[in-house]
């Protein structure tokens, strides 16, 4: 059986602490043995609040195993920067996709789904599906 190449996950937040904590949370909830490459891209390159195109490109390259990369973002410049990088054509690995999903719940759904060996479309669908989870 051919080895299943996992989808990579990039988590983009205005805050480095939020991005890495959500990555840790999603990995933790995905369970032991889940071999999903997850990389946070939080804050600006100098450690402030904001979005860094450079950190996003580095994170996407780091998690790319050839099966596509799902990018989840918080808001504002995080969304716009990823969209602008995707429009550029050569800044992010082939098969990189911005996923329309809530940041925390979507990240957990994406990592858990990716850990089953699901493809990019299934990972993206699971993350978007998290929007339908109601809390009251």
């Amino acid at each position, binding site marked *: 059986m051919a080895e299943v190449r996992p989808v990579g996950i990039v988590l983009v937040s205005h805050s480095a602490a939020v991005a890495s904590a959500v990555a840790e949370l999603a990995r933790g909830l995905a369970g032991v043995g889940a071999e999903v490459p997850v990389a946070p891209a939080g804050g*600006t*390159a100098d450690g402030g*609040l904001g*979005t860094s195109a450079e950190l996003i490109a580095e994170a996407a390259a780091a998690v790319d195993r050839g099966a596509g990369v799902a990018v989840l973002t918080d808001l*504002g*410049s995080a969304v*716009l920067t990823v969209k*602008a990088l995707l*429009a550029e054509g050569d800044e992010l690995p082939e098969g990189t996709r911005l996923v329309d999903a809530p940041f925390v719940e979507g990240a957990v759904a994406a990592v858990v789904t990716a850990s089953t060996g699901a493809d990019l479309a299934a990972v993206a669908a699971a993350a978007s599906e998290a929007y339908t989870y109601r809390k009251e």
Partner: protein
Amino acid sequence: MLDADFFRRWMTATAASVEREADRLTALDSPIGDADHGSNLHRGFTAVRSVLEKEAPDTPGGVLVLAGRQLISTVGGASGPLYGTLLRRTGKALGDAAEVSDTDLASALRTGVEAVMALGGAAPGDKTMIDALVPAVDALDRSFAAARTAAEEGALATTPLQARKGRASYLGERSIGHQDPGATSAALLVAALADTAEVSRG
């Protein structure tokens, strides 16, 4: 006709103007934003100025594509991808020509503004940079000076509007009564274009 040097001078003039007005842009961004618009754009256009000195692209399109890419890389706020997309798409629309006409520029800039609207989802009246850019592009068919006036009037006209995009939109009615910082910086970009055209034509 407008050559690569004209476009480099436009970007340099914008960098100087943003540097001069950075504190005012940040002050406008304080009541309705996160008080970083001036410093973000200052960092971005300073980087644009230095990359253009270093690489010196030899076509108008090349200058704007490089400037746009630099803004996306260095600004760190929403204005980076928005202005970056504006310049890059305008530059791509200009293609590889060594010189372009005023009409070519007006048409390319319209393509760039439409790309910004598609990226951010803003329409005229949402209290954004679009409120300065759309009237400027419309007026550019008449003259550079008319475009400058239209952009400045468009920026001033954002004051009574309620924000419908970005962080300011969370403030609802409290965003009314403040001039939009993005429309204000967009007017600086257009004013720098008009200044550059005036200098080169005497």
